[in-house]
């Protein structure tokens, strides 16, 4: 025991736990930051877990007829986006709107009936059945008319693909099974900002031909019709796969 009350105080040393806590905290923060960082950054390049790969091959025009796929969960939205036909002419607007309208009518016609008359005669039953049927049919038609965003994006992707294929001059050294994956950056006006090879085919001539095809295509002005959200989601950066499948040698 020291003799003086004015002796130097001895503070308890609390060292290890704070150091440990500090290191753990900063380590965790760094870890989560780096992990999340790449994830959020990756969302721009990879829209879906499966990369948006566009198989660039020569396609028949007949294949490009719009194949409406009725979506089971599609809700009848009055503001259905007009489905641009594969040729991506934005003229198709009036059509779907006209189709949407009749849907509302049967709906309102059907509903009040059961309420007003609890006992239903056979004729009325038949009428209701008919109304239901027409309602269902109208709904189906509407679903067909409704282009989901995915379909729209797909049609634009097809458009890009076709344009690029038109400009594609394959070198004689191209063989079946060659694959070149290109990363393409677009801006909302549809112009190509940059093209880079993500995965080379192993054949420089083939890679160069693919890059040339995209550069010759230059821009896809039709993309201006795409809503900007869709554009950001799908076409700001996307990947294009070049694969000469149609070659016979």
């Amino acid at each position, binding site marked *: *025991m020291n003799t003086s*009350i*004015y002796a130097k*105080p*001895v*503070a*308890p040393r*609390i*060292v290890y*736990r*704070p*150091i440990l*806590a*500090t*290191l753990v*905290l*900063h380590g965790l*923060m760094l870890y989560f*930051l*780096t992990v999340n*960082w*790449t994830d959020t*950054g*990756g969302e*721009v*390049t990879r829209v879906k877990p499966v990369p948006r790969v566009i198989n660039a091959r020569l396609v028949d025009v007949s294949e490009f007829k719009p194949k409406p796929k009725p979506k089971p969960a599609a809700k009848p939205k009055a503001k259905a986006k007009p489905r641009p036909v594969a040729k991506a002419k934005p003229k198709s607007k009036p059509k779907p709107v006209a189709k949407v309208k009749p849907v509302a009518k049967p709906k309102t016609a059907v509903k009040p009936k059961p309420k007003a008359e609890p006992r239903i005669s056979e004729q009325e039953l038949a009428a209701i059945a008919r109304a239901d049927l027409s309602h269902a049919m109208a709904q189906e038609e509407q679903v067909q008319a409704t282009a989901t965003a995915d379909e729209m994006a797909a049609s634009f992707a097809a458009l890009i693909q076709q344009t690029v294929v038109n400009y594609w001059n394959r070198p004689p050294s191209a063989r079946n099974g060659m694959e070149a994956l290109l*990363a393409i*950056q677009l801006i909302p006006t549809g112009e190509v*900002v*940059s093209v*880079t090879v993500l995965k080379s085919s192993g054949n420089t001539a083939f890679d160069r031909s693919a890059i040339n095809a995209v550069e010759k295509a230059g821009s896809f002005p039709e993309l201006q019709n795409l809503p900007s959200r869709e554009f950001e989601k799908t076409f700001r950066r996307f990947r294009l796969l070049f694969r000469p499948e149609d070659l016979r040698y």
Partner: protein
Amino acid sequence: MQEQLSLLDLVLDASFTVQFVMAILMLASMLSWYMIVNRFLYFRNAQDEMYQFEERFWSGVDLAQLYREGNEKAADGHVLLGMESIFRAGFKEFSRLAQQSEMDADAVIEGSRRAMRVATMREEERLERHLAFLASVGSTSPYIGLFGTVWGIMHSFRGLANTTQATLATVAPGISEALVATAMGLFAAIPAVLAYNRFASRVDVLSNRYDTFTDEFSSILYRQAFALRTREKQVN
């Protein structure tokens, strides 16, 4: 640039000044967290020991006995802190002065109060250790971060001036890495400010308790000193 920028790339590609700023901020953040945890544990200890000691003190135990218990604890290598060290300082001074029969009760109490005041000051000093650092990290690190950001943005715009075709892509990475500095500054500052405020209020609470204890204890001592002196007078 084509690929996504990882955080690490942003930090590593930054200019020297920005990197320097980031290093300072990282250091500040780590130190302040060290001190936060350190202070947290210290305050928890101090509070626990204060409650324990108060309980023991008011349980009616003999003061000399309590002092001896403290001696034993100190001999075990236990560091006596807070209220107990104030008590020991006051009691030691009291017993020393009380042995000198020429001092009257007032002088004895005055002496022991002085000793307790010194001990209290020392305790407060211990409690407030590191708090100044937390306060200065809290108030300056946003500015340091901002400095790094401004510097980085300055540079990336200067780079923009040299190019003929100005696109966002030429400045964006520079700005992004510069902004990391501000983020780090805020990251260091926010916990430091919060902790500083919290700890400052705890220091206030604890030192109030110590002051109260000092007054209570000196009134007890006064009673004892007075009784001692009257007994001595009767004997004489």
